[in-house]
């Protein structure tokens, strides 16, 4: 009996329909062809039907006047703006809630996750209950609860709760004073940027110095001082303009100042609390995945608990934490579309109104899909880059 080696190149001659290589190719070509055919059929069939039923198609409507008002916008918008701008307003609102949601739920989730590992029985139990309570109820119900709490529990604007005579809390949201627009603000923004860059430079310098000489440097305090201090100095040099726009009760509602609306608050709180429960578990699993020797070694070096967590455990735990964290960030972004249930004007809400007024469902759904895909792929790409950066360098 002949023994065939794995790298034998001479294969026995078989008929092409019995040759696994040929068959593999044929099957793949056929399947790709079928999928292509199906896609072609769906597209042409849809276009044909739209034409037959005289339903308008194409993206011309984007430049038409939208005609509807949006309650919460980061850029100037009025009913006279175009549909494209209305969709952009929705997009920015989605991004705003997603970015804030990601930052806040990461912070909260990390604290809870670490808290659950605390030797303090009460703290670790509270964190455990937090996780179990919030992740086991559907997010939509949390959103409804928080929205109801805000709109039912807080008084109307005329009976608003006043804090320090300048913050007003009512069922219309939280009104607070903001500085009136001043050219100095642009320079302060530049100052902030300079401060951030300087903080990074100081951090690198401090690290190098510590590696070389062993002398520690209060990096965090210096960084905070730089980030806050530089814009502050710019402001003082510019003559410290302090004209404020104060919220005032006029007619039905507060005018002036700025507002955080209840819909936004409810959505953000719901997203953060729900997602942080998952993140807490991811952080905990990351830390528990480390060898016990790591924390013992850190303690043996005389590091405090906080120091060992920050300098030894968390950096290593990151390797386990980052990949599942990416999924949670994507979830926050996608779950933000539940905004529609409580009336926060996000991308989906803006596009839904557009669909109903233009009747062009397919084009608009494609816009939503493209937008979410872009954002999600962006988050994925960033997290994959970060993951590679912190990955264990294997030599």
């Amino acid at each position, binding site marked *: 009996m002949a023994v065939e080696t794995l790298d034998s190149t001479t294969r026995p001659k078989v008929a092409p329909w019995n040759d696994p290589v040929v068959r593999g190719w044929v099957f793949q070509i056929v399947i790709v062809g079928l999928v292509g055919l199906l896609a072609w059929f769906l597209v042409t069939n849809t276009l044909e039907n739209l034409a037959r039923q005289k339903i308008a198609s194409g993206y011309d409507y984007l430049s038409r006047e939208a005609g*509807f*008002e949006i309650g919460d916008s980061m850029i100037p918008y009025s009913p006279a703006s175009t549909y494209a701008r209305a969709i952009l307003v929705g997009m920015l609102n989605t991004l705003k809630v997603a970015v804030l949601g990601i930052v806040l739920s990461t912070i909260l989730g990390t604290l809870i996750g670490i808290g659950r590992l605390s030797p303090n029985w009460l703290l670790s139990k509270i964190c455990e209950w937090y996780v179990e309570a919030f992740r086991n109820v559907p997010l939509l119900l949390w959103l409804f609860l928080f929205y109801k709490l805000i709109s039912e529990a807080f008084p109307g604007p005329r009976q608003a709760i006043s804090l320090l005579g300048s913050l007003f809390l009512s069922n219309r949201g939280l009104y607070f004073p903001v500085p009136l627009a001043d050219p100095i603000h642009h320079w302060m923004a530049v100052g902030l940027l300079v401060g951030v860059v300087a903080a990074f430079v100081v951090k690198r310098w401090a690290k190098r110095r510590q590696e070389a000489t062993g002398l520690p440097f209060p990096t965090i305090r210096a960084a905070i001082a730089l980030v806050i201090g530089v814009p502050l100095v710019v402001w003082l040099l510019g003559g410290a303009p302090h004209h404020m726009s104060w919220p005032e009760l006029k007619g039905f509602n507060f005018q002036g100042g700025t507002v955080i609306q209840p819909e936004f608050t409810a959505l953000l709180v719901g997203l953060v609390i729900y997602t942080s429960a998952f993140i807490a578990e991811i952080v905990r699993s990351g830390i528990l995945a480390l060898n016990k020797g790591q924390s013992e070694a850190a303690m043996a070096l005389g590091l405090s608990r906080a120091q060992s967590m920050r300098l030894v455990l968390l950096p290593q735990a990151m390797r386990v934490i980052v990949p599942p964290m990416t999924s949670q960030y994507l979830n926050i972004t996608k779950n933000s579309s539940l905004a529609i249930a409580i009336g926060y004007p996000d991308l989906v809400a803006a596009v839904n109104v557009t669909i109903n007024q233009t009747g062009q469902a397919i084009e608009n759904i494609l816009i939503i899909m493209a937008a979410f895909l872009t954002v999600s792929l962006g988050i994925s790409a960033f997290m994959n880059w970060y993951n590679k950066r912190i990955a264990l360098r294997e030599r």
Partner: protein
Amino acid sequence: MLKKLIAAGATVVLLGASGTAWAGKDLDAVKARGLLLCGVSTGVAGFSAPDAQGKWTGIDVDVCRAIAATIFGDSEKVKYVPLSAEQRFTAVQSGEVDLLSRNTTWTLTRDTALGLDFGAVTYYDGQGFMVNKKLGVKSAKELEGATVCVQPGTTTELNLADYFRANKINFKPVVINQLDQIRAAFFSGRCDVFTTDASGLYSIRASNVPAPQTADDFVVLPEIISKEPLAPAFRHGDNQFGDIVRWTQFAMLEAEEYGITSKNVDEMLKSDNPSIKRILGVTPGMGKALGVDEKWVYNIVKQVGNYGEVFERNVGMGSPLKIERGLNALWKNGGAQYAPPIR
């Protein structure tokens, strides 16, 4: 199994063939199914809402029932599909429902770009505002800075923006899709104003105010800021189905005009009035021309009632809504409801 398949195939081919030759395919599909699929609201009292027994009632529901009576001679052969404002047009376009009888405003864009056609006007409506009495507002012109609760995906949203823009009034909308959610937002005080068609405001005031507040705590402001002719909609392209929808509605108006009611329709069969004889099919011809049973109007009136009866029962003085006939009175009584003659 194979036999069944062949039979089904043959039916499809025959239907297709007859479709091109005689009537539109929508009517054929309705007849083949033996059931009219009627898109209604998710619950607007007086227009379309399920009652305590889960039976759908309302003026829009009665239009569906009357059309089923015309096509099948039986007003019960209807299946109701509750649709949100945003789902409704897609549901008709895709064929999920045959008819959309769901307090829907007839506009040019909807009639053209959406690929729809509209029947006759079921109810002449107009958009209004409702506020809490405590605010002491007497006119919509006083609403500067108000927060307005509005349902998305309707002409309501556009009229609102137009009206406030024209009057240079600033407002903030709160937009929630689900009717019960937006109502809750209004009654909890999240908004100062609730806006929708006036009929809807009366409907909500009559049946949705949560305790301890009562209907008397809310007022509907006098301004009517838009024309909202509510009409049933269906897919563009099947003219015979369109004729049946329109003339069923006209028949209900004609019946009221000639005093034919669900109570006296049997005696009316013996009437000497030539118009009544024609309408009720005693003198044949009308049903044949429309492609339905000669007793179609008899069936509508006997099973559903004439327009006046339907109005009073669902939204008029015989209902909790207590809406005046107003524009919806017959033309003879100073209203706008006018049917072309059945002859």
